[in-house]
């Protein structure tokens, strides 16, 4: 019997993403305590749009989290190996890879169209009688289960129906459990749960369909190196979610500390902070990002010893990119927080706290910070989609995510040359575009609702 052992391989970004989820959960729980805030959140979730976009965002975050538990498989002992030392594969896998089955390993030689059984390029094929024919070679992993004479279209239809049925059954079971739970708590009619369930069922059914068909065919074709496009696009989810959230989260402490102290202490602190952020924001951000990324690149090249496997190096570069994006974007949040603190510190209750001799730290923690939390939250949600979109532009400039990491930006970037080939290769662009568009759209719609709930000024005047 063969024992598959493994060694966990935790990347820096893995730590951070889990840490971030913990923070957000903690933040949400602490917000629930305050009745005003939970009222506002209820306004967001009581709309159908808010509920369905939230479920979509959750699905993306869920995939990103699954893709953030990494491990390295043990290699089978080499023939004649005497020591009991176990060697581990240099490929870092994640739980998501396990769920996707063979999809990540089913590599072809080069491009192939979605659901195609043949390659995109003509090649010289040696036939059994010794002659060579120039034709499209058959793909190794697409439709391997088909018998001679089986209709491909019929097979796809059958497999699709089967997969959808499985997915729906799974979704319905989960929904039934949730419904029962809600009913027992008596909160069944508080929120538009049916919308949530429908969105959930669609996502689960769609994912099951993708996974089961993706193991039989290349649902979205293959890219130049023969990798499955669907697999690459799904792996891009982690990169997208991480870049959107980490870049903001990492620099949140700077923005908060600087912004609050400038607005609260005024005087020379205010001058210094204003000077720092005006200077930083007067540098064209793309140049600052490019310069910092190039400098980090030089550092990595000079210090190769810090990274054990290729993915760790890519991960280090990625983390640096998030930092750099954060550095160039914290100024606007800092400015907002400073202005709001200036206003708050003039209010009666803060003045009263002063008069009672409450310490500065106590005032900042108890009176100022809680009243700024909605600004921080709205900025976080608003910046998220901007960062995801920015990644594509950075990839084009050549300072984006390392090619060793799957990313939508890199895929979209290749598309400009791929489209103009004959016949044109559209599947790489569409795969990355669809996933990116859905995420950004969901976040944008959700952040609109959050903004409306917490910022009454922009609410629509219908009178």
């Amino acid at each position: 019997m063969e024992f598959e052992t493994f060694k966990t391989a935790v990347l820096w970004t893995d730590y951070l993403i889990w840490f971030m989820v913990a923070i957000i959960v903690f933040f949400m729980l602490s917000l629930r305590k305050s009745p005003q805030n939970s009222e506002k959140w209820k306004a967001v979730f009581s709309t159908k749009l808010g509920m369905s976009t939230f479920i979509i965002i959750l699905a993306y975050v869920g995939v990103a989290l699954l893709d953030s538990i990494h491990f390295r498989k043990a290699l089978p002992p080499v023939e004649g190996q005497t020591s009991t030392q176990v060697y581990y594969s240099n490929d870092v896998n994640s739980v998501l890879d396990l769920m996707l089955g063979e999809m990540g390993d089913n590599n072809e030689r080069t491009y192939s169209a979605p659901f195609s059984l043949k390659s995109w390029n003509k090649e010289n094929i040696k036939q059994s009688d010794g002659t060579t024919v120039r034709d499209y070679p058959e793909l190794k992993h697409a439709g391997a289960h088909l018998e001679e004479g089986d209709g491909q279209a019929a097979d796809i239809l059958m497999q699709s129906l089967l997969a959808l049925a499985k997915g729906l059954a799974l979704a319905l079971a989960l929904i039934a459990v949730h419904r029962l739970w809600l009913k027992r708590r008596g909160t069944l009619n508080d929120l538009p749960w049916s919308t949530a369930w429908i969105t959930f069922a669609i996502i689960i059914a769609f994912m099951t369909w993708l996974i089961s068909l993706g193991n039989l065919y290349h649902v979205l074709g293959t890219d130049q190196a023969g990798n499955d496009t669907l697999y690459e696009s799904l792996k891009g989810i982690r990169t997208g979610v991480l870049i959107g959230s980490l870049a903001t989260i990492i620099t949140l402490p700077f923005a908060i500390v600087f912004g609050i102290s400038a607005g609260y202490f005024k005087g020379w602190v205010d001058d210094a902070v204003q000077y720092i952020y005006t200077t930083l924001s007067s540098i064209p951000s793309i140049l600052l990002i490019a310069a910092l990324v190039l400098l980090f690149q030089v550092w990595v090249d000079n210090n190769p010893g810090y990274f054990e496997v290729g993915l760790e190096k890519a991960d280090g570069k990625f983390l640096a990119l998030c930092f750099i994006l954060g550095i160039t974007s914290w100024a606007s949040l800092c400015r907002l927080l400073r202005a709001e603190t200036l206003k708050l510190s003039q209010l009666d209750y803060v003045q009263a706290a002063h008069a009672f001799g409450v310490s500065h730290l106590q005032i900042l923690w108890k009176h100022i910070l809680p009243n700024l939390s909605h600004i921080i939250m709205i900025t976080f949600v608003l910046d998220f989609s901007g960062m995801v979109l920015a990644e594509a532009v950075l990839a084009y400039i050549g300072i984006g995510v390392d090619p060793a990491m799957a990313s939508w930006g890199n895929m979209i970037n290749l598309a400009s040359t791929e489209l103009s080939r004959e016949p044109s290769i559209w599947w790489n662009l569409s795969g990355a575009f669809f996933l990116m568009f859905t995420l950004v759209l969901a976040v944008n719609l959700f952040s609109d609702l959050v903004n409306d709930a917490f910022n009454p000024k922009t609410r629509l005047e219908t009178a």
Partner: protein
Amino acid sequence: MFAYIVRRLLYAVPILIGVNLLTFILFFIVNTPEDMARAHLGDKYVTEEAVQNWIADKGYDGPMFFNNEAPGVEKLTDTVFYDKSVKLFAFDFGQSDDGRDISSDIVDRMGPSLALAIPSFLIGVWVNICVALMVLMFRGSRLDKTTVAVFVGLMSISYLFYIIVGQYFIAKVSKLVPVSGFNDGLDGWRFLILPVVISVLAGIGSGARLYRTLFIEVSGQDFSRTARAKGVSETGVLFHHILPNAMLPILTGIVVVIPMLFMGSLVMESFFSIPGLGSYMLDSIRAQDFSIVRAMVFLGSVLYITGLILTDISYTWADPRVRLS
């Protein structure tokens, strides 16, 4: 007014010094001239002598901030910092790595950049305001909600996607306009029309949505309600009450951007092979030519600060209540 402008200009000096110090630290202390030389000459198989020659050739070999051996004032002026950083204040950008004069390159490339940036900017703002006003007429209706949803959808599409798809369908498949290129003079419009259209389209989502929000805020205020109550037509309210009052926030957004038009658009220019400053920057980033990057950083911050000052001045023009002092 004059005193205010002078004060703002003086305030700009420490910021520019800060920018210069920061870039100098990044490009000469964090990333040493030796690193630069190795990056340019290739990492391996390069002799120490070749590296030193490259550094001396570029003038990076002196002391960084303070030259003890030089006499008098030259203690400060005969340094890398003075030569490479302080001279930027006189717009003396020096030479790029391939020996071309950066200042004249910048002057040459400004034209094509502006030829693309000015029409995109003007048409973009005009279209956004028109669309926002149109949507405002139907506010609260189903049409309004749908349009806002469409705006959010347009916002969620990557900028690159607009360019790639636009270039593919309009230029390559239907062959209406040339795919890319640039031509001086009036004949050049054929090359510019596609990038302008694409950048206007890509901007509608966020632009028109922002303006709609601004207009709605103004239209909820008392004077708009009074105007409607005394019988002014809805279009009259729109053009005589809402639009002038929304000008202030609109100006804040657009005046800052005007000087930055000189910098051109990084992605657009390189996709359509327009020889402007945007593609100049992109090429220098890709070639790791840091002397050009430093020059462009300085130019960019000068333009940004100019934009801030212009914004303040434009306030007094748009809103007589604002007095600069």
